[in-house]
């Protein structure tokens, strides 16, 4: 286990180093002088020189990369051009809302995808299987920004069942102000027992979370189905049938656990993807997350901010993959003893 752990961690560190280098390279590709971008077009040569000095732009590239990595590790992710605030601070403000949205979406996706996958595998090649495959294919093929618009217009606009946009009813800030611990509104509302804010957030969360959940739910259903069908061909599944268990019981109680590995890896893979998909949904539902920050950064060609968002998502991807591998180590005794 320890050797597996160290090897896995070593790989992750290597990938992180690569991610930082790639981000740095892409930022260096920016046409134009970052000093000009910071100091403004009417800056005097002295101001420009000061800016160059400040960002170390006269150093050799290797030194710049090293300094960049060192600053990142030290929490200095640069200064946003459009908010004029440290990027790291901007990100910590925007990220919790995105996490809230994607977290809720993944809960919905797993809750829908796994049972649907089991259903399809149980009635393989039958009508339930065909319906699940059809629906899950639709779910992974739908353009998320379009789905967001449709869902918003129909369920919030026309039918009025859900609020149109926002994270919670802002008038609640006066009547029942929220004490902030984690910055994730729904969690804070829950632990402080602030029910008005909690229900309002849940209400606002419903539509965007459902839209973000579509893609992960589709792939999770397909993966669960495939993994279960694969597992069903194994001798141990036949043995559990021979021990007197019915088909459904065999799938749920015997095949699901060993089939969980690929499904878990998939969830990690989909997590970072869902955050980026969430950007588009955040834009439609005016959700105060990373997506809004990224959109503003793109509009103002704010390179440090873009680099920050990109880096954060890539690190989340590497982190969630690492986490899943570790969780698998705990879940799967075959890995645990490696």
């Amino acid at each position: 286990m320890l050797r597996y752990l160290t090897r896995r961690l070593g790989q992750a560190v290597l990938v992180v180093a690569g991610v930082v280098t790639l981000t740095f390279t892409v930022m260096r590709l920016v046409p134009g002088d970052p000093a000009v971008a910071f100091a403004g077009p009417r800056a005097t040569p002295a101001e420009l020189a000061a800016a160059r000095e400040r960002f170390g732009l006269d150093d050799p590239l290797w030194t710049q990369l090293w300094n960049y990595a060192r600053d990142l590790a030290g929490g200095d992710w640069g200064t946003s051009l459009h908010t004029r605030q440290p990027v790291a601070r901007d990100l910590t403000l925007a990220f919790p809302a995105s996490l809230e949205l994607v977290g809720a979406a993944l809960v919905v996706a797993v809750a829908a995808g796994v049972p649907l996958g089991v259903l399809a595998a149980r009635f393989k090649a039958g009508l339930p299987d065909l319906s699940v495959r059809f629906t899950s294919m639709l779910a992974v093929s739908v353009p998320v920004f379009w789905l967001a618009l449709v869902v918003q217009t129909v369920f919030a606009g026309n039918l009025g069942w859900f609020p149109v946009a926002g994270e919670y009813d802002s008038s609640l800030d006066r009547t029942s102000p929220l004490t902030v611990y984690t910055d994730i509104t729904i969690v804070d509302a829950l632990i402080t027992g602030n029910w008005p804010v909690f229900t309002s957030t849940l209400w606002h969360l419903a539509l965007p979370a459902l839209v973000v959940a579509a893609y992960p739910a589709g792939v999770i259903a397909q993966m669960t189905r495939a993994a279960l069908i694969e597992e069903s061909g194994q001798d141990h599944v036949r043995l559990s049938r021979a021990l007197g268990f019915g088909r459904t019981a065999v799938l749920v109680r015997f095949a699901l656990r060993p089939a969980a590995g690929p499904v878990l890896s998939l969830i990690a893979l989909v997590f970072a993807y869902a955050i980026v998909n969430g950007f588009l949904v955040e834009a439609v539902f005016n959700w105060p997350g990373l997506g809004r920050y990224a959109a503003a950064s793109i509009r103002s060609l704010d390179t440090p901010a873009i680099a920050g968002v990109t880096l954060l998502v890539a690190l989340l991807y590497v982190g969630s993959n690492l986490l899943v591998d570790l969780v698998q180590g705990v879940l799967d005794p075959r890995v645990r003893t490696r």
Partner: protein
Amino acid sequence: MTASPEPAGPAEPAGPAEPAGLAGLAGPTGLGRRPARPLRLLLRRLLRTARADVLAAAGAVLLLAIVACALLAPWIAPYPEDGGTATHPTEALLPPSADHWFGTDQVGRDILSRVLFGARTSLFIAVAVLGLAAAAGVTLGVVAGYAGGWIRDVIMRVTDVFLAFPALLLSLALAVVLQPSVTTVVVALAATWWPWYARLTASVAQSVATRGYVDAARCLGVPAPLIVFRHVLPNSATPVAVQLSLDAGGVILTSAALSYLGIGVHDPTAEWGLMVQQGQTLFTTDWWVVTFPGLAILVTAFAFNVLGEGLRQALDPRGATR
């Protein structure tokens, strides 16, 4: 899966299909000869799948129809000039009718015509992106798999790094850094899709390179490029084809998302994502402006996805026995 040990379970939907099994499709071969591909067997298997897999067959038919629309757009579109620069302000925002089946947009252009022309844009981007990605990925993959050793390790770690960036995000960043244009979108998307092909080909190449007939050819002094050309590439063709079909849906969705964000294609070029973006403020009053282009994206991505999934199951020997 950044750097997971060895893929243990069944192939994931987004990832490469089991290459070792697919490589097994090439029949037994003589010394140093090119593996004989049982083409007729392959065709028969495809036909059998089409009968058994209604979804995949539907996907193939849909896709053919979409390609036909793209190719024939100038001739079958009711108002071909609306695919380009024409505007008819007096006919703005007409609801669907016998004259305009999908209605008209805010400058009076026929939406059906623009949807048909949009198929050209989407398919062009998909072909360009996947062509570039596959060319780069397959080349690097062959090198990695055939050379092995540290070269393979380096290439594989680089793919890990690229895979850590979601396609849409890296494309966004690149599109900001480079000039926003169709070329940028194509390059950015290709930059995020090539690692899949590198991984896929590397594993096929590795399994082929250790086979008896390749060793034999090497001993006989057949030059390395020739071995690669004769053995590794043909064996990679099938899994790469399956992967291309599976990825096309994703590329179409991502490029539409980029256009929706206003990066890449610009008006008057007809592009579905851009059409959704331009119509979104009108959705509550003029539903057709957003609905039809969105459906076009959905149907096209769906066609590619079900076809790719069906192909994978048909060509994977394990899938065939299911």
